[in-house]
């Protein structure tokens, strides 16, 4: 069973529906015991980083997630949930992330003629192998909506998307995975990424 961690941020309905579409049941929960029993964890999130970070830490769920990851459980962070995997974010001041992946989250600093947020479908460029890419081809498009992105994370970088410069799209460090885009809104490509995550076994 897959637990979608509910810490009071965002709409989890689409995420849950898309797992159902690839044949996996999920439970949306903030309950530590249920999270501990789950095979895999999803960390969702939309909105601003400081608010999400505060909710994740004050609910005690940050510690639960870190414990479970230390036990080897696969974790997938989606959009803001992916940004929370890093050490810190510079959105509205500096606030702490989970520190599961080295790197920080900063404003997308690109020439003025490029629109921010980076909204729309953009192609994935592969940087290294990852089980998440099992059913994805280089150049497949996924749907992004964000104004901040992760930097200084070269060691964990799996895929990028080009928007004046390379933006961090997929990261992995051991059993910790993250997608900056919305797999649940990225059509068949997105569903394939979720399916690949669901199929990850004990090989990590």
């Amino acid at each position, binding site marked *: 069973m897959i637990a979608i961690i509910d810490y009071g941020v965002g709409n989890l309905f689409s995420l849950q529906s898309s797992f159902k579409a690839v044949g996996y049941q999920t439970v949306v929960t903030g309950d530590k015991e249920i999270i501990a029993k789950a095979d895999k964890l999803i960390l969702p999130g939309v909105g601003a980083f400081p608010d999400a970070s505060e909710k994740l830490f004050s609910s005690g769920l940050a510690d639960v997630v870190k414990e479970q990851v230390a036990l080897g459980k696969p974790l997938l962070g989606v959009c803001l949930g992916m940004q929370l995997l890093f050490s810190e974010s510079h959105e509205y001041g500096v606030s702490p992330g989970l520190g599961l992946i080295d790197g920080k989250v900063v404003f997308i600093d690109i020439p003025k003629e490029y629109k921010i947020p980076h909204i729309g479908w953009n192609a994935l460029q592969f940087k290294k192998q990852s089980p998440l890419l099992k059913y994805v081809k280089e150049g497949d498009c996924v*749907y992004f*909506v964000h104004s901040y992105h992760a930097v200084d994370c070269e060691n964990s970088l799996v895929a990028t998307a080009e928007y004046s410069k390379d933006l961090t799209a997929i990261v992995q460090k051991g059993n910790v995975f993250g997608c900056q885009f919305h797999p649940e809104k990225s059509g068949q490509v997105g569903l394939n990424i979720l399916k690949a995550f669901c199929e990850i076994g004990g090989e990590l």
Partner: protein
Amino acid sequence: MITKRIIPCLDVKDGRVVKGVNFGNLNDVSSPVTLGKYYSDCGADELVFYDITASSDGRKLFTDILREVAENVFIPLTVGGGINTIEDFDRVLKCGADKVSVNSGAIKNPDLIKQGALKYGDQCVVISADVKRVDGKFTVFAKGGRENTGMEAISWIKRCVSNGAGEVVVNSIDTDGVKKGFDIELLKEVCSAVNVPVIASGGAGCVQDFITLFKEIPTIDAGLAASIFHFGEVKISDLKNQLKENGIIVR
């Protein structure tokens, strides 16, 4: 590079798609779920559902059906029509909408955009503006194009964006329904006035109209249309292939 988006728009009344859809191979052409899935499978980049229901019963049906669409269609969903309060944002977002499009509601209460952006983020709020030339001036119309607000369109759109609208849909009343192409003059002005994504609406009659749109205005993000897709005059898969052949980047 980010791709240019093609967006079909579906008018929904009492939970059903109206404006007669004409696809021989679909059994239930007025089901938003069937049509939504069909468009998504054809390569639509996003769907806009416009609620044209007037009654509260119809509104309830709309949100029920939206939930069903969101359970089955995995591309971004934008909802417009009848969005007048922040409670309306809550109502449609809970049912799986990703973005909320405001029009007359924002004209009545310009704070609505600010409230929506503050609560859900700029990316969630779309300003949809119905624009018509009056004495040579681009003017904003309300209530589905029936009421002249007297407001100049470009400054209205700029104001909405500075209030937090993260995307702009520009619907030209002058070109709408004429099928002679998008309103390039108006769209160029809007694109040079704001730095958020701009979606062109009104006037598409054939594939060439989309090619012209993206060639003439390289900074425009998307083209939206309704009847030409519904009646099969333009097939989204053909449209995308021809855009590609013309060097326009699409998914």
